[in-house]
C-alpha cells in the first residue's frame, strides 16, 4: 500500500498524493523515484484516514445537510 499526503480529489474519486512512501517492505521497487502520484479512482479499494484527524461531528452535520439538500 501507498502512504502519502492528499493533494486533491475529483468527481471520479481520482486521488493525487504528494510525498509518497511505500509501506509494504519495498517489494515494489519501481516507486523509489516517484514523489507524487495520481491514482485512478476505479482501482482504489479503500482509503485509510488516521481516525483522530476526522471531526465526526462536522462530518455528520455536513452529511445531514447534504441529504436534506438532495431531498429538495
Amino acid at each position, binding site marked *: 500500500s501507498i502512504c502519502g499526503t492528499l493533494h486533491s480529489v475529483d468527481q471520479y474519486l481520482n486521488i493525487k498524493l504528494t510525498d509518497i512512501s511505500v509501506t509494504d517492505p519495498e517489494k515494489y*521497487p519501481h516507486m523509489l523515484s516517484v514523489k507524487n502520484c*495520481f491514482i485512478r479512482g476505479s482501482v482504489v479499494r479503500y482509503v485509510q484516514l488516521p481516525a483522530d484527524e476526522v471531526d465526526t461531528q462536522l462530518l455528520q452535520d455536513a452529511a445531514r445537510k447534504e441529504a436534506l439538500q438532495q431531498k429538495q
Partner: protein
Amino acid sequence: MNYMPGTASLIEDIDKKHLVLLRDGRTLIGFLRSIDQFANLVLHQTVERIHVGKKYGDIPRGIFVVRGENVVLLGEIDLEKESDTPLQQVSIEEILEEQRVEQQTKLENEKLKVQALKDRGLSIPRADTLDEY
C-alpha cells in the same frame, strides 16, 4: 496555475517523465503527452520496465496509447532520485529469463497452495479478471 482548484488534474503533468502502472502488472515509463477525462494517456519514448528482485530491464516501446481503465497509478519521476536507485540494470534477455523463472516459481507455489487447500476440502474461487493489482 490550476484550472480548477481542488481537483485532481493531470494537466500539470504533461511533458514530464512518468511511471505508469497498469492493471496487468506492467510498468511503463515515458513522457506524458496527452490526457483526457478517462485518464486515457499518450506516452512518448516509452520504455517497458521489468523488475525482478533488485534487477530491472528496459524494453524500448516508442509511442503508447493507454486506455484509462487499465491505468492503476501514474507517478511523476523525480529525475535526481532516478539516478541513485539501488537497482541494477541488466540486459533485456537476462531480465526476461529472470521473469520467466519468477513466473514459474509463482505458478508452482500456487499449485502447492491449491493442492494443500484441496486436501482440506477448501477452494479459492478463481478471479475472473486478469488483474495483477
